[in-house]
Every structure is written in C-alpha cells, then in structure tokens.
C-alpha cells in the first residue's frame, strides 16, 4: 500500500510467460463442451454437502450460480452488499436476452450466434467460450420460462422475439423494457428457495473486502457487515466472484451507485490475472448530464436510433433552441459520414462520432455535451400515435428526467460508460489464475472480446451461473479435496484480515479535507477524458502520470467521518475509491500498450483513412492478462494468443 | 380449515366479511319491516307479533326469532372479535407515526373502526330501549312496539342517537360491502364499478329507510 510510485516511468511493465487456456478440449468446436463435461470429474452427491462454496454477488451470474450449486447439494455461502439479493444491478438491464432458438425460422443457429458474437467482439474473444455460450443460450430460455419469467408472448401463446443491433436475425427474447429485472427475479426466486431450504447461507449488506489465499488456493474471503461494521473471515473450498463490472471507475456510468471493483481488484492483488482492462463499452444513447451534481447516467434503449435522426448545429456555439435552427444549418453527421448505415451504425462508432462533434464545440445542452436525437420526421411520417406506441415508455422516462417533451423538442443524448468487457482472466472452466477462484458474468473477461453485442450480457451471466460453473467447479472440487482445515488463526487468514482492518483504520484516521466522492469524481473525469471513447498515447501517458499523484493526495486528504464499527456509507465509498485509484492505472496501461484499435478500444493512432478502428491482428491478436506486482509497480503482462479456427478476422466497414 | 381461517389475517378478514354480510342481510329485512310503521299501529304491531310466530306450527312461539337472534349474536361477536384482533394487529404493525402526518391515509380505516364502535354501542342501547325496555323513556309496553317507537323518537336524544348511528351505518356499509367483496375475492377490474354502485346504493337505501322512522315521528307522520 505504498502511496507513491518508486518508478518514474509510469508506463512500465514487463512481459512474462504466455498464459493459455488448458481446459478447453481439442476437437470440433461444437463437441468441446460435451467433451469437457464428460472429462470433468464429478463429486459424489453424498459428498457435496461437505463442500462449501462462497459466491460473491447475487446478480444474474451469482444468483443463478448460488441457486444451482445449492440444488446440486453444495453448501453455499453467498454475499451481496445490497439489502436484498434481488437488487443486484442486473435488474436494470432493459433490452433482452439472445438465444439461438430459431423460432422465427429466419436462418438462426448456434453457429450464427457464435459467429455474430465473435465478430461483434472484433475478434478479441476466445472461440471455444463463445461457442459454448451460443450452445447454452437455448437452454437458458427453457430454464427461465420454467421459473415463471413472464417473457413477452404472441397471441398464440408462444414467445415473441425482436431484433437487436449488429445482427440480421430476430433472436432477442424480452419482457417489455425490463428483461433484466424479470430474469434476475427468476434467479433470485430460485436462490430464495435454496435459502429457505437451508442450502444457501445468505449474507446481505455484507461486502467482500479481500480474498483469502492459503497454499496458493482460494479458500475464503474477508467481508464486512455493513450494518455493524464487523469484519469477519469466511472459509470455503472454492470462491466464486460474481461481482459485476468496473464501469464505475468512470464515476459517471450507467452502473448502480454502489457497483464496485473491490472484489475483483482484491482478487487481482492476490494473484488473479486481470484481462483486457481497457475494454469498456460506451453506449451512445444515454441522457446527458445536466450539471456537476450528476451522480449517474441513465441509458435510453438504442432502439430509438431506428426512427430518430441524430444531428448538431453546423455552427459552433449555436445556442438557439433546436426548433429555431433551420434545416440547412443542421448537420445530420451520421447520415453524412456513414451514408449506408446512417443513424444505425454500431455503438462504438455512434459514440465516437458524438464525441467528435462535441469536441468541435458543436455539442448542445448544458456544457455542450450532447447531440440531438430528433423524432420530428418520424412523427411527421408515422403520426404521433404510432411513435407513442413504439417509444412511449422511453419518451415518458426521458421527460421524467429532463422535463422536456420529446414529442415537441428533440431529445438530447450523449454516450456513457455502461459495460466492461475486461475482467478477471479465466480459463474455459471459468477458473482464474488462482486455483479455486472462479469468476462469472461481467466479472470475467471471457466472451465478448473488445465489444459486446446488445442482449448478450444477460445471456452470458445466466450461461455462466446456471450451466457452466456448476459443471466445471465439480472438477476442481473433485480433484482437490482440501487437505488442510483453514481457521481464523491461520497466518494467511490473520494477515489478510489485518490488512483489511488496517486499510479501513487508515481511511478513518487521515481526517483530511476532501470527501470520497470528490476523489471518485476526479479519477472518473480523468479516465473519461484520457481512457474514454478515444485514446491516444500522449493522453494515456498523461493519465498514468496523474493517477499516482491523485492516489498520494487521496491518502493525505481523504476525510471519512464516523467509525468503522457502525453503518458508515462514507467508509464503504472511500474503500471502493482506493481500488478505483489502482484499477484506473492498469486500465490506462493496458490501453497504452494496446496500440491498435479494436471494438470499444479506439486508439486515434490506429485508424483507417475513413476514421474507423484499425485492428493490428499480427501484433495484438491476444488477450492481455496482467499480473499484479504491487501498487504503483510495473505489472507483468501474460499474453493469451487467440486462435481463430472457425471465424476469420475481417475489418469492419460501415461507410 | 377453521384454524387456518382464524389464525390468518386474511382468514379473519373473511370471518368479518361473512358475518358482516349476514348482518347486512338482516338489516335489509329489518329496515323493510320498519317501514310498516307508516301504515299505522295496527299493521306495525301485527307485523311485530308475526315475527314471533314465524315457522309455526313447526317452530314453537318465538323459536324462529331466537334462532335469528342467536345467529345475529354470533355474527356480531365474530365480527367484533375479529375486528378487535385485526385492529390490534394493525396498530402494532405501525407503532410509530410519521412526523409529517397525512390525514387521508387512514380515513377509511378510522371510519370503520370508530363507526364499528358507535354501532356496537348503539346496538346495546337499541336492545335496552326497544327490546327489553330497560332504558326506555316513558313506560315501555311489551307487545306495543308502535307506541314504544313513537316514545323513543319523541325525545331529542333518542333521535340524535339513532340518526348518528344510522349515518355511521351508512358509511360502514359503503366501505364494508365493497371490502367484503374484495376479501371474498369476488372483486375484479371489470366488476369494480358495479360493486361500488351497489355498496353506495345499499348504504343510501338502508340509511334513508332507517332514518325515515324518526323523521316520520318528528314530522308527525307517525304519532
């Protein structure tokens, strides 16, 4: 926990041994999952209750994993920081969940979903994992329907589907605009059944603060009861992290306010490799910020781009109300730059284009950080009723937040961080580089490469939790019947716990003059500027130079009122910021070292003549798995080479 | 099943609903019979006597009336006991009040609770007044209900007690009938309007029908 770096070269790193996934079997890709399940050792059902598995997080991945492991007979001890497992942020997902059911008979198949996902990820995902995801997608829908998830249906009583960005088939199942909520409640209810049955010991309002590693294996966690402040150690034979993504590094994002990176970052510090941290997805259609008071950003479904036209004034600093700007003084820039795809270009391209026009000083709304999404033409063409029927809910939501009526004035939108493709490095079994530590859902890096397609996050979370992990964790537990009983007195446990207690004590002791939020905001703004939608060598170097200074200032000036032995939300926040201040550095370093553009990672130095992302497959066709060596110290890069046997990398073009 | 009913808050509400509906049915008949008073002492007294002879010769004199009385007492006891127990439960469930109080939140609840207490006291007075004659003003004459009724409504307090109680009854029926329908699960979105209309109609008709008697006495229509 050194607060200043001993290195003057903030961008330093060393390259270590390559890392490889050793778990995915050889052979035809469509047989690998079956083969793996057959080869995996099983735990005798009678012995399962002797095994304890810790699951951190209760979102789609964690909730489904906890419920399923408990059904199988394991003793599950589960944690969430929320007051109820039902509130995990998966609940906020709107659009839907993909599955290769081919109910529409429109040519969909497991292979097509696999292909679309690898391509959508800009060829930076592992083929075996993605293919398995596509295979399992079909079972997820069956499972959720059996649980009573009220998916949208047609008059014949069969499930309805719709299309989503980046694909040409209709494979997205949905429950109005609340698919995430309904799927999560399904998992929560399955989990609740297991809690009632005594198979899951649930700890709500309890936050994981560190990982316990004994003899090189993950054997438990240190967690704090957020109500009493009590810090305890919990032991298990395996630990599953389902703690979500780290988008909140940016301060403003579509993540929940308390979503945080502590669980994965602490695991990283304990030895788990962190893969592709710079791969973050920035969603183009969010409601822009209204001022410095803004605490989070709200997403508007990207379906709006089907009928809305995006524009900004041609002139810089034009502050006239939008309806007074004549047609010939408007720049419908997406239609101008990408005539064939127009307003429907992929997320990353739409986001970057909006940033560019705002950087030119042509942004609209407070602070000039916004572009218009105009429905005047659509209303003229289809009539207000038709538009209301299609988008009424979204228009209402927009009006509630902004107090502007989008039927009369154009909406203002701006891109916002909302998903992180990077995460803990895992093998085909979803096991991290620490034996016994697994990562599922957004917490791992496995399936989306450099860009996630719409409606794929829910699919991945549930695939991991319901189907993948419960099959693969058996193998680990069967091969590693634990030798040594771990207790609180074990030196490794006592030390981890002591470190945690000292960290919190130190946060409380500084008694400086800046709030946790002010530091969070500062690091967030820095990241948004230099490690956001467009990244440059110079900018990233600047950020890397700045972050250690912020960290140093943090430990000098942070102010956390109250004590650690009580409900203390400032302390929770401050502790999360500690980890953001380190993770941000790794994100910038990863972004700096990857001097290509791919998916959501856009390096200005690496673009095609038309300004599109240019991949450098020769140089960067790998997943970057980083090993921690100490705060402010040069990390070690382990490359996992990506081999594409089935989907051959191509360059995207939308002009 | 009886235990499940009585032990559950939903079951106890069912007991209230059913006993309330029994009393409501009785009140409708009672109100209708009361209107005989407008046809003179002969008709009214004859009607009152007939009540005692219902079911003869199968039933002995006054047996049917006693059966009705027993059912009514059971209904009142069940209604009041469940109301008392449910209210205690409700009050316990909300031990501290909001500092920023809003009156409308508890309007219906309060009307039902205080209305119920008023009605309970009224029933006691009503029986002591016109059935046993214990508190009757001006010489109770068994077998002469017409005169007894006229006596009661010739005092100001007799009228006040009665009219206040009947207004409370109206409010009680208005919310109670609709509530009973919800408790028994017969309400639905399509039926809601009809149920509310019936509840309002029952409340108005019963209140008006009962109040007609003291008003008749006061205006000299009944003397």
């Amino acid at each position, binding site marked *: 926990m050194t607060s200043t770096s001993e290195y003057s070269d903030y961008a330093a790193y060393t390259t270590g041994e390559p890392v490889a996934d050793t778990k995915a079997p050889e052979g035809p890709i469509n047989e690998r999952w079956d083969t793996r399940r057959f080869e995996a050792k099983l735990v005798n059902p009678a012995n399962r209750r002797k095994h304890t598995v810790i699951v951190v997080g209760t979102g789609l991945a964690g909730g489904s994993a906890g419920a399923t492991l408990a059904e199988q007979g394991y003793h599950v001890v589960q944690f969430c920081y929320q*007051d109820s497992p039902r509130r995990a942020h998966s609940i906020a997902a709107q659009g839907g969940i993909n599955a290769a059911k081919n109910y529409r008979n429109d040519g969909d198949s497991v292979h097509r979903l696999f292909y679309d996902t690898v391509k959508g990820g800009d060829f930076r995902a592992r083929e075996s994992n993605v293919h398995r995801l596509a295979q399992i997608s079909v079972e997820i829908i069956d499972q959720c329907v059996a*649980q009573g998830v009220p998916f949208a*249906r047609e008059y014949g009583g069969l499930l309805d589907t719709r299309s989503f960005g980046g694909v040409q088939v209709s494979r997205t199942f949905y429950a109005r605009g609340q698919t995430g909520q309904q799927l999560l409640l399904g998992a929560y209810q399955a989990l609740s059944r297991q809690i009632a049955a005594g198979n899951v010991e649930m700890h709500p309002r309890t936050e994981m603060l560190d990982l316990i590693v004994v003899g090189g294996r993950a054997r438990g966690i240190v967690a704090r009861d957020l109500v009493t402040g009590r810090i305890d150690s919990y032991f298990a034979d395996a630990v599953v992290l389902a703690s979500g993504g780290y988008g909140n590094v940016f301060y403003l994002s*579509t993540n929940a306010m308390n979503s945080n990176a502590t669980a994965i970052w602490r695991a990283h510090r304990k030895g788990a490799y962190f893969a592709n941290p710079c791969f973050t997805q920035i969603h183009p259609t969010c409601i822009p910020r209204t001022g410095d008071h803004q605490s989070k950003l*709200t997403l508007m479904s990207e379906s709006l781009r089907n009928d809305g036209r995006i524009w900004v004034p041609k002139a810089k600093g034009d502050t006239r109300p939008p309806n007074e700007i004549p047609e010939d003084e408007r720049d419908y820039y997406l239609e101008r730059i990408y005539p064939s795809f127009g307003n429907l270009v992929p997320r990353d391209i739409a986001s970057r284009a909006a940033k560019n026009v705002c950087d030119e000083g042509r942004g609209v709304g407070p602070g000039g950080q916004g572009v218009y999404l105009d429905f005047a033409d659509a209303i003229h063409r289809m009539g207000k009723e038709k538009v209301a029927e299609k988008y009424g809910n979204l228009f209402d939501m927009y009006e509630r937040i902004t107090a502007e009526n989008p039927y009369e004035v154009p909406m203002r939108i701006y891109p916002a961080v909302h998903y992180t493709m990077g995460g803990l490095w895992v093998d085909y079994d979803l096991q991290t580089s620490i034996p016994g530590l697994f990562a599922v859902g957004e917490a791992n890096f496995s399936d989306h490469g450099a860009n996630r397609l719409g409606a794929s996050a829910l699919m991945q979370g549930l695939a991991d939790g319901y189907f993948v992990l419960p099959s693969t964790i058996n193998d680990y537990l069967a091969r590693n019947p634990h030798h040594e009983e771990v207790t609180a007195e074990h030196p490794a446990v006592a030390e981890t716990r002591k470190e945690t207690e000292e960290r919190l004590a130190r946060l409380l002791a500084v008694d400086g003059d800046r709030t946790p939020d002010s530091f969070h905001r500062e690091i967030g703004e820095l990241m948004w500027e230099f490690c956001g939608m467009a990244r440059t060598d110079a900018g990233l170097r600047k950020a890397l130079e700045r972050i250690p200074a912020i960290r140093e200032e943090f430990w000098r000036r942070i*102010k*956390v009122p109250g004590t650690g032995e009580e409900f203390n939300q400032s302390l929770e926040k401050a502790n999360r910021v500690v980890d953001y201040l380190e993770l941000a550095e790794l994100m910038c370093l990863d972004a700096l070292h990857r001097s290509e553009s791919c998916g959501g990672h856009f390096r200005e130095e690496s673009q095609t003549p038309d300004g599109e992302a240019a991949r450098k497959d020769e140089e960067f066709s790998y997943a970057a798995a980083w090993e921690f060596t100490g705060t402010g110290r040069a990390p070690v890069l382990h490359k996992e080479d990506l081999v594409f046997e089935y989907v051959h990398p191509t360059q995207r073009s939308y002009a | 099943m009886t235990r499940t009913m009585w032990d559950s808050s939903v079951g106890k509400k069912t007991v209230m609903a059913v006993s309330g509906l029994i009393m409501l049915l009785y009140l409708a008949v009672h109100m209708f019979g009361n209107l005989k008073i407008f046809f003179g002492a002969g008709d009214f007294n004859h009607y009152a006597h007939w009540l005692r002879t219902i079911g003869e010769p199968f039933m002995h004199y006054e047996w049917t009336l006693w059966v009705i009385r027993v059912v009514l007492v059971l209904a009142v006891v069940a209604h009041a006991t469940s109301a008392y127990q449910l209210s205690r439960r409700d009050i316990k469930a909300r031990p501290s009040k909001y500092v920023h109080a809003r009156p409308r*939140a508890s309007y*219906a609840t309060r009307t039902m609770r205080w209305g119920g207490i008023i009605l309970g006291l009224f029933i006691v007075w009503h029986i002591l007044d016109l059935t046993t004659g214990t508190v009757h003003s001006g010489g109770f004459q068994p077998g002469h209900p017409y005169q007894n009724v006229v006596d009661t409504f010739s005092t100001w307090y007799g009228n006040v007690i009665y009219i206040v109680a009947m207004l409370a009854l109206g409010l009680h029926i208005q919310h109670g009938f609709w509530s009973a329908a919800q408790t028994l699960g017969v*309400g639905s979105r399509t039926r809601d309007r009809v149920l509310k209309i019936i509840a309002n109609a029952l409340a108005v008709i019963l209140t008006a029908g009962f109040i007609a008697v003291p008003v008749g006495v006061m205006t000299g229509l009944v003397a």
Partner: protein
Amino acid sequence: MKLTLRVWRQKNADAEGAMSTYEVDGISSDMSFLEMLDTLNEELILKGEDPVAFDHDCREGICGACSLVINGDAHGPERTTTCQLHMRAFKDGDTIDIEPWRAAAFPVVKDLVVDRSAFDRIIQAGGYVTAPTGAAPEAHSTPVPKADADFAFEHAECIGCGACVAACPNGAAMLFTSAKINHLNVLPQGAPERESRVLDMVAQMDEEGFGGCTLTGECATACPKGIPLMSITGMNKEWLRATRKAGKR
C-alpha cells in the same frame, strides 16, 4: 433553490431518533432528490458531521433500494421512486420532511435506512417455482395465453421497495405479497404449487408482523410500478380457494 430539510436522524436500531433541520442552498431543479441529499452529505462530511444514511443504488427506478417518505408520501409527491423524483417538484424556500419507511416489520437500521429482509422471507416461503436447473422442458411446450402472460408481467413488475408497507396505515404487506402470488399463480408453470404458495406466503407475511388490509388503497396509490389494488383481491381469492382445497384433503 434554497431549501429547509427536516430529516429523521437515528444513530442505530436501538437509539432514539428525532428530526434534525438542515439548510441546503444552490439546489438545481434538474437534480434528482437523491442528488440533493448527496449535496447535503458532501457538506456534512466536510463539516465533520455524520452524513445522512439512506438506501439507494441503481438510481433509475428499478432496483427498489431507495425508500424515503417525503412530506408524508412514500417516494414523495409523484408516482415514481425517490431516485426518479426531481427537485423541480419543489419550490425555492420549501421545507421538506424526510422520514424512513415506518412499520414494525421494517425496523430502522440507521437514519433513513430500514431493514426490509421480511420481504425476502416472504418470497422464501413460496414466491418461486420449483424448477431445478437443467430440468426445464422446451420453452414452447407450454404456450401461455398472451392475456395471462401480460397479467403475470404486470404483477412481476414489483420492485420490492416497500412503499406499499410505508404508505399503508396498517403497515401491511398485502400488495407486495399479492403481486408475487398473482404473477406466479396465473402461469401454467406456477400451477403445481399454486395452493401451497399462497398459504405459505400469507402465513409468513403474518409471521413477520405486517398488519392486515383495510382496503384503504394507499398502497396502490404509492406503488411506483402501478401494481393495482385488485391484486390483493386476487390473492384473497387464491387464499380462500387454497384453504377450501386444503380442507377437503
């Protein structure tokens, strides 16, 4: 805007609580209600005072964490969650009273934070379909009439925030419980456990110390997701049906 806030402060579950008065200035009408509280808390921290504790997470009206009674109304004057309430609903110079959900079954944890775990236990009592992973039949093997699916969805929208309990003069959890029962009992997948579900959940609801329903309708008025009052009628019907069937066995 400049506002006077009167906020319920309570150190912990066992401590006595009281209203404390604070002044906040420079509030923008575009702020959400919670951002206004963030502003207050930033000031309190810098002054070395204990910031006001309140539950919040997604801030987009879906997680159900936020839970404030504002001027006597659960979630404030508009029909939405507290996080989606904006300061434009108030005027410069207003005095705003902020209190926690109040119900015996929702004890205060600190300030405006309450313990809603009773809701979790009601779901644990039967608010699920027993469908172990892997055992599911093909999704299209049982069609569900669209009307039933829509009905189920409308009730499944409940976010478990507890505004219904907070608004109910009896501290009743009927609307919350009935929403889940209606959601699952109308679906063919929920049918096998239809009776045990309603009996067990209602029993748990009573066990937790929630009050009973007097059909004041306050719950449905406060519900940010518009769960209808008729949901309770539906639960009563299910309960009576289940009790009758249990009696016959």
